[in-house]
């Protein structure tokens, strides 16, 4: 196909999806597509994929290190057979139409042959004179790896900074330097495009009042992340740039460049800065000293995500992060100390205060850059007033051009979990009408044949990660290894840095081969997250995947014993002894597979459930919707308008009609789930359906939970007892049904956070601030003279919702803040409604006469329902009774129980468009599982030693799944295909005739021996 060196045309019958942008969103979308067997090309303008997330130190709300959570995704990206990655590549044109686009791509010269580059780093050592790594702080290398786990694992060179090309060539022993490298143009057929280009962060150097970039100790939030990061400029040591000393007093200033109308500001909210400031403040205290004073200057604390309010409470109450509600206007630098003086005013004191800090962090938000605007032009998509991609009101991943989908920050400012959801949704949309590629190699076939280790003595390699500071900051890894390297059969014991990075994996593989190892112990993070990765490593070098033991030195040691490093050290040695003794007894095991049921069960028939079902059904998947109510539609039935002004009813009706008419969908209303059995890929769920409650059983391979939440109606402020006290939902109806009644009103008072952010329901309901603003705007539209007061604690109009909040203020809606300690009081004076509250600006109590009081009551989890389902399906829930996803950051749609996916308000409160997105994402994720066609049951099954079996029937009786039976030979038989691998039979068998593979008695006893070896 190659036409000449610098230009090629790729025409293919197997059309592919082009994903633009290699941040976490782009990677997720590309992986989803590849996993559902669609061909994907992922391009990124940068020299390595990973995007913004790879520069962060840790992520909220788990405060995990990012690299270790994202790197498995990245190298997974390197592995998928349907996925091709082109870094340093841009799109310059997109012709044609959806399904038959022709994309023109330009690839910049890298000056390095990625096939030859071994990433030894020699070139970086010899030519360390330019900046490309961390923003503004890390002067390093014209040849540059963005971070230790980079994909592709190769350097790139900024040729303009090299004067002596010959010297550079000589440095590279691998001969990978390509001084003559040229830009390359590629024209390619693509079916659809997913746009996940993210955004830049605002550069605060234009702000003279904050030092204009001249103050050493004023940094941006991202720079602060880099300073704290183990791969950052100070190797993870928190110090001031001016004197290299640790700061004692750090301040964060929120909304820098955001939520403003001054010259350098943008009016929208960037949605993530409150959370990242809280995280940075908490991590500062956690890692660098309890005694460091941390202060956050904020306007509204926007912690509206799932569980985020509790995170905020933790920061304030447990970490003693000081919260000051103020927008400081000036920072001055003290010339002698380089300390910083912040001038600010708080709301109840009119005088300005000055306070000195050692370091100031500016929480800057997202900005679309010029390159992205140019890209949008090349793509022919419309932009909104803030230069972000204009998207469909009900379906946020649709751009103005059919076939071009958008996800992540470029759609609107958002955090990583929401980006992940949207990425899966965009991938699901982009895969519509795109045929599945023929099945190629399955996972196992990509690996070399297994080496037979029968008869070999154990040769064990012990590899311990430092995981940056996560392990290495607490343990002395070398000493730990010294303590275990003399254990029997240990051949090598080596530190491996970030063990999950491509570099370390390659090193481990090389050592396995060199030392002819046949057992491996990895000391690092949890096997729950990384075991598969290291099992794959063993397969790559021809060893059976069950010859590795992971020892949890991080989650269960350094993270919990960080304040007792000596004890952590001692425990690490013992845990490694356990791993070594255990792995010695491991032997190769074979995994079992079964064909997978291709039907889907969607629980819940609201907008979320219907959207997910349609998406699946359109892909030819037989889908059942089980809804307990007599009709479809859910909570959206009681909603009239969205904040964008769209009518909800016709939208819901269209969905109902489409679902009802679809030949692949069976709708079961008035139906409840009564039993559930089977295993991922082969589920059986029993329901009672219809007026007569007939029993029927559904066989399905995947399950989507879309059970929604309940509209909250707490008996507060006279709701249910005083006339004219209503909820925002009631108001929404009133505005639609009886506008004249509104026109007759002089004053309306709305009260926020009713039944949310308080004891009993600690989290934020997310939807209420926008609901109040929506209804206030509608009141003003119907009756401009009606006064609207909104009593709030923090206005949480995140992202572009801020535009509506601003508009409401412009139209004269009065916003008055109250605190939880001093709540408004609703009373009746001579039959008149009066709301009393404290006005912090006037610093006095005021009374407001009201024709009606509207309570923003938000949502609560459907406790009874989620509890029943959680019990039946064995699913975890959060403390506030929503379903708990597998990983709050990276897997927000998948449940820990394989085959279960989660969407809509059953996950957490969210607005309709967010529910729709998550529904598409859940359908997409479900398809990645169904596309595998077969399920791997693993190797952990019970086996019977017939010679020992006394046919006592105990196993037959105790098995929770009725698998064992006494066969024709008169002994117990356990079919591997049916065994769930719990080991209850092995635990009960009196003759010890049953062993659970991978957890055999001698393995467990060996582990105990290892622990008590002295």
């Amino acid at each position, binding site marked *: 196909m190659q036409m000449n060196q610098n230009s090629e045309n790729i025409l293919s019958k197997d059309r592919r999806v082009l994903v633009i942008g290699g941040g976490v969103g782009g990677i997720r979308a590309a992986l989803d597509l590849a996993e559902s067997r669609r061909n994907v090309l992922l391009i990124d303008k940068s020299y390595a994929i990973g995007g913004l997330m790879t520069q962060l130190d840790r992520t909220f709300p*788990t*405060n*995990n290190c990012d690299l270790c959570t994202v790197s498995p995704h990245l190298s997974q990206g390197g592995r998928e057979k349907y996925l091709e990655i082109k870094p340093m590549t841009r799109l310059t044109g997109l012709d044609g139409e959806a399904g038959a686009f022709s994309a023109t791509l330009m690839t910049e010269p890298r000056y390095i042959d990625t096939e030859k580059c071994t990433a030894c780093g020699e070139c970086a050592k010899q030519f360390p004179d330019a900046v490309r790594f961390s923003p503004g702080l890390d002067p390093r290398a014209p040849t540059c790896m963005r971070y230790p786990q980079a994909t592709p694992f190769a350097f790139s060179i900024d040729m303009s900074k090299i004067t002596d090309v010959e010297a550079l060539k000589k440095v590279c022993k691998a001969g990978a330097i390509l001084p003559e490298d040229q830009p390359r143009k590629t024209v390619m057929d693509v079916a659809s495009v997913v746009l996940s280009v993210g955004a830049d962060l605002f550069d605060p150097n234009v702000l003279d009042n904050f030092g204009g970039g001249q103050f050493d100790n004023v940094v941006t939030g991202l720079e602060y992340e880099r300073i704290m990061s183990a791969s950052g400029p100070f190797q993870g040591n928190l110090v001031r740039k001016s004197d290299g000393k640790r700061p004692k007093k750090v301040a964060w200033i929120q909304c820098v460049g955001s939520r403003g109308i001054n010259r350098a500001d943008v009016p929208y909210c960037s949605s993530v800065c409150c959370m990242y400031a809280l995280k940075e403040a908490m991590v500062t205290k*956690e890692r660098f000293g309890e005694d460091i004073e941390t202060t956050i200057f904020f306007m509204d604390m926007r912690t509206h995500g799932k569980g985020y309010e509790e995170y905020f409470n933790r920061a304030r109450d447990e970490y003693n992060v000081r919260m000051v509600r103020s927008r400081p206007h000036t920072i001055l630098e003290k010339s002698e100390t380089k300390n910083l003086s912040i001038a600010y005013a708080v709301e109840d004191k009119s005088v300005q205060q000055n306070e000195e800090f050692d370091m100031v962090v500016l929480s800057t938000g997202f900005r679309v850059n010029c390159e992205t605007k140019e890209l949008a032009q090349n793509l022919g998509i419309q932009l909104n007033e803030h230069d972000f991609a204009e998207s469909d009101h009900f379906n946020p991943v649709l751009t103005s051009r059919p076939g071009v989908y958008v996800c992540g920050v470029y759609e609107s400012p958002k955090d990583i979990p929401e980006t992940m959801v949207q990425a899966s949704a965009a991938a699901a949309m982009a895969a519509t009408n795109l045929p599945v590629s023929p099945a190629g190699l399955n996972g196992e076939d990509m690996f070399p044949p297994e080496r037979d280790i029968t008869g070999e003595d154990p040769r064990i390699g012990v590899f311990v990660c430092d995981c940056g500071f996560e392990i290495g900051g607490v343990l002395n890894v070398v000493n730990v290894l010294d303590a275990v390297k003399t254990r029997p059969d240990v051949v090598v014991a080596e530190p491996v840095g970030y063990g999950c990075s491509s570099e370390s994996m390659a090193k481990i593989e090389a050592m396995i081969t060199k030392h002819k190892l046949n057992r491996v112990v990895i000391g690092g993070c*949890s*096997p*729950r997250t990384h075991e598969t990765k290291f099992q794959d490593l063993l397969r790559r070098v021809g060893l059976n995947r069950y010859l590795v033991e992971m020892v*949890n030195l*991080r*989650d*269960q*040691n350094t*993270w*919990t*014993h*960080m*304040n*007792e490093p000596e*004890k*952590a050290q*001692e*425990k690490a040695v*013992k*845990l490694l002894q*356990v791993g070594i003794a255990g792995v010695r007894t491991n032997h190769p095991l074979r995994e079992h597979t079964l064909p997978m049921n291709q039907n889907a069960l969607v629980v819940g028939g609201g907008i979320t459930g219907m959207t997910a079902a349609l998406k699946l059904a359109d892909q030819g998947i037989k889908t059942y919707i089980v809804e307990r109510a007599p009709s479809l539609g859910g909570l959206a039935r009681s909603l009239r308008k969205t904040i964008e002004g769209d009518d909800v009813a016709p939208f819901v009706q269209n969905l109902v009609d489409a679902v009802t008419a679809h030949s692949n969908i069976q709708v079961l209303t008035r139906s409840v789930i009564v039993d559930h059995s089977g295993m991922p890929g082969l589920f059986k769920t029993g329901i009672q359906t219809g007026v007569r409650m007939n029993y029927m059983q559904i066989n399905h391979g995947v399950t989507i939970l879309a059970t929604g939440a309940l509209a909250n109606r707490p008996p507060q402020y006279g709701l249910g007892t005083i006339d004219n006290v209503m909820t925002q939902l009631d108001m929404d109806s009133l505005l639609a049904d009886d506008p004249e009644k509104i026109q007759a009103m002089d004053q309306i008072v709305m009260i926020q956070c009713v039944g949310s952010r308080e004891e009993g329901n600690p989290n934020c309901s997310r939807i209420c601030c926008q609901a109040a603003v929506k209804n206030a705007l509608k009141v003003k539209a119907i009756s401009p003279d009606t006064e609207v007061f909104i009593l709030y604690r923090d206005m949480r109009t995140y992202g572009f919702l801020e535009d509506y909040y601003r508009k409401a203020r412009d139209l004269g809606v009065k916003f008055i803040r109250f605190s939880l300690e001093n709540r408004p009081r609703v009373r009746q004076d001579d039959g008149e409604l009066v709301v009393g509250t404290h006005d912090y600006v006037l610093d006095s109590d005021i009374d407001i006469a009201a024709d009606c009081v509207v309570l923003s009551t938000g949502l609560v989890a459907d406790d009874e329902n989620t509890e029943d389902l*959680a*019990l039946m399906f*064995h699913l*975890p*829930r*959060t*403390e506030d009774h929503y379903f*708990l996803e597998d990983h709050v950051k990276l897997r927000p749609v998948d449940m*820990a*129980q394989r085959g279960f996916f989660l969407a809509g308000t059953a996950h957490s409160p969210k607005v309709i468009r967010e529910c729709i997105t998550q529904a598409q994402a859940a359908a997409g994720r479900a398809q990645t599982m169904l596309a595998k066609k077969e399920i791997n049951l693993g190797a*952990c099954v019970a086996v019977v030693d017939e010679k020992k079996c006394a046919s006592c029937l105990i196993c037959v009786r*105790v098995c*929770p*799944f009725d698998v064992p039976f006494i066969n024709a030979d008169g002994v117990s038989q356990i079919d591997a295909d049916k065994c*769930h*691998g*719990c*080991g*209850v039979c*092995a*635990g*009960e068998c009196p003759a010890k005739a049953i062993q*659970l593979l991978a*957890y055999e*008695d001698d393995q*467990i*006893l060996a*582990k*105990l*021996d290892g*622990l*008590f070896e002295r």
Partner: protein
Amino acid sequence: MEHFEPEIVAFCCHYCAYTAADMAGSKRISYPSNVKIIRVPCSGKVDAIHLMKALEKGADGVYVAGCLAGDCHFKNGNVRAEARVNRVKKLLTELGWEPERVAMFNMSAGMGEAFAQVAKEFTETIKKLGPSPGRTGAMDKAAS
């Protein structure tokens, strides 16, 4: 006695207790480092012999941690585990050992705090009991 640091083995089921332990880690909740976890697919896998052997080999206390009642990933493995722990308690009593040296706990995957709390309380209990008779040679006496 004053510097007695007990050795404690916790058999944790993969789906709940082991995950709760990881959760305690990601929330940076500390608990005594005396507790060493051995992962099993289900608490119902833990055999009475594993508990006894752990004590024999040098543990001062052993516990099994599984899912909450009714929440077991494998339906009722945790109930079986509890019954077995109770059998071992009886056995220990017959041997003249403190039955408190073995215990069963239940927690869900999200309960990092509960994991740490259980680890703390159990460690305290064992500290009060002192070193296991197995360590001090009482095992032989009891067996004879």
